[in-house]
């Protein structure tokens, strides 16, 4: 298999993993194994797969509450992600965070922030730390179109550009801030244009085309590593499911969703691969079977995970005592 085919195969695998994982999460939620808020990523897989493929192991990632896909694409084991949603101690946040707060410091995945815009300042700080320590690392910050309306967004664009920090802002524009369509929340809906006003390179990408996302991310990451300061990508995507499991999805037409499913990133890439002779029905069946097995195993691990004893309730509020320096 040549390098291009290998890359496409990996992106396809990643998107299918995320899609099937999310579909299983719906079932598990209905069966009440998962509770709380749960925000599904179905439809947006090209963004997670395309962005995270370009992030190095020591680069940092800051994400939002719709982050199952980001976490999986970052390499957090699926069983640790699912166990977290089960509230078990073998979850990636020890059961304290849940679906919206997935963390893995070893993989430099810093959450899972459920305040819209709230992760951006932290990402700026992570980038500042690497800059001050002269480390050639990039911080990748994912957020949605809703965050662009927050004051924190504009403060952070300005600060990152002012200090020329090594940070890639990835705006997942899925056209809705919860139930409010983009033209009802933004006076200027060209989000990349607004980032440009802060003096940083910014452009829009077809976020349903995983190869386009990956190429743009690679280009931006290379520029940032070379010292050209922050970049902004507006990744134009769409979520096929409701905002959360509580959302009756009254604010958009079914026909609109149907139109967007025609751009589903998974068949789109699979079709291109088939056309180039890089994917057969057998390949796809094998891939689906592998993913199913991984999910089954994750469910088993999550179900078997221990619940934290209530006596430990007040752990993780303060760090364990350390010797004064």
């Amino acid at each position, binding site marked *: 298999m040549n390098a291009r085919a290998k890359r496409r195969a990996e992106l396809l695998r990643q998107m299918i993993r995320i899609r099937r994982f999310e579909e299983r999460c719906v079932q598990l939620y209905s069966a009440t194994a998962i509770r709380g808020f749960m925000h599904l990523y179905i439809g947006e897989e090209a963004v997670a797969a395309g962005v995270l493929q370009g992030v190095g192991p020591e680069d940092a990632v800051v994400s939002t509450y719709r982050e199952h896909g980001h976490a999986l694409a970052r390499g957090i084991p699926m069983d640790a992600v699912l166990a977290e949603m089960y509230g078990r101690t073998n979850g990636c*946040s020890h059961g304290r965070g849940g679906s919206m*707060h997935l963390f893995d410091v070893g993989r430099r995945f810093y959450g899972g922030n459920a305040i819209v815009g709230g992760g951006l300042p932290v990402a700026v700080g992570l980038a500042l*730390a690497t800059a001050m320590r002269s480390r050639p690392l990039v911080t990748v910050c994912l957020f949605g179109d809703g965050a662009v309306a927050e004051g924190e967004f504009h403060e952070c664009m300005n*600060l990152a550009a002012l200090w020329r920090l090594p940070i890639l802002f990835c705006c997942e524009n899925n056209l809705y801030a919860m139930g409010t369509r983009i033209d009802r929340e933004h006076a200027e809906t060209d989000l990349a244009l607004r980032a440009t006003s802060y003096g940083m390179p910014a452009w829009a990408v077809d976020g349903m085309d995983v190869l386009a996302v990956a190429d743009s991310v690679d280009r931006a990451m290379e520029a940032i590593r070379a010292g050209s300061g922050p970049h902004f990508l507006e990744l134009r995507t769409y979520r096929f499911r409701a905002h959360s499991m509580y959302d009756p999805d009254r604010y958009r037409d079914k026909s609109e969703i149907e139109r967007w499913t025609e751009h589903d990133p998974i068949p789109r890439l699979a079709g291109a691969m088939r056309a180039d002779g890089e994917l057969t029905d057998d390949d796809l069946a094998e891939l689906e079977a592998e993913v199913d097995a991984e999910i089954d195993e994750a469910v088993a691990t999550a179900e078997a995970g221990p619940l934290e004893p209530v006596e430990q309730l007040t752990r993780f*509020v303060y*760090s364990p005592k*350390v010797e004064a*320096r």
Partner: protein
Amino acid sequence: MTTYREALRAGIRDALSSDERVFLMGEDVGAYGGSFGVSLGLLEEFGPDRIRDTPLSESAFVGAGIGAAIGGMRPIVEIMTVNFSLLALDQILNNAATLLHMSGGQVNVPLVIRMTTGAGRQLAAQHSHSLEGWYAHIPGLRVIAPATLDDARGMLWTALADPDPVLLFEHCSLYNVSGDLAEDAGPVDIEHARIRRPGTDVTLVAYGGTLPTALTAADDLADRKIDAEVVDLRTLRPLDENKVIESVSRTHRLVIIDEGWRSGSLSAEIAARVAEKAFYQLDAPIERVCTAEVPIPYAKHLEDAALPQPDDVTEAVLRTVG
């Protein structure tokens, strides 16, 4: 003679000199020298990378301090005053105080945030808040309030060694307070309250800007043959309730002085704990001297009337011993 402001600066200089991970960031900390002059001269000494002027973006630079702390640095973030910290409340509460817990113990935030607090300079309602009691409400934070030169000099060092976020409140009336500070003054603990004046008849609990108020009242009371003990809380969260209870168990009377508003305040918390744990030690109802429940007015006589004054403390004490 050293001023409180100079003691703070010496503490910051000390930290910058001894640990290359430490840097200071905030509005006008560099070229201006700090809104209250605390960081004057540090830019020349340590350079713009480590004495970092920020835009007026409280949420961004406080959050950046959180991120930098997670990323291996030891930032000191200066918020010009507590009033402006409200613009960064999301970062302080939802990130600094919460990340360790949400991440199941993975992400600790070794960050120190300094800010000025308090009233008394005719700056009117928006520049005169005392909201440290709000922050003391939040699990995950440590809240400290240096009231003496030794604490101004030594608390920062210990705060920077803390693996978790520490909020350090400097009352605006203290910056010009001067006195003798030992050459070898160094780190102090940030766990315990201290008795600043021993006494036997009544316990006065104060902190930060109300410590001088309590001490002045104690002098006045001494003239009236009432021997007041003054406890300086120093750390507002976690509260050293043992020290307060120990004192009350000797004096059997308690007056709490707090520049916060009375309702839902730190003074209410202290009163509740003493009532819960030392009720039978009390020979009189607990008294509180707090700020009047009004936004701080501009007019001098009204501002004075709104804030806890030594005479108010004296009167409260006279009610408890009467």
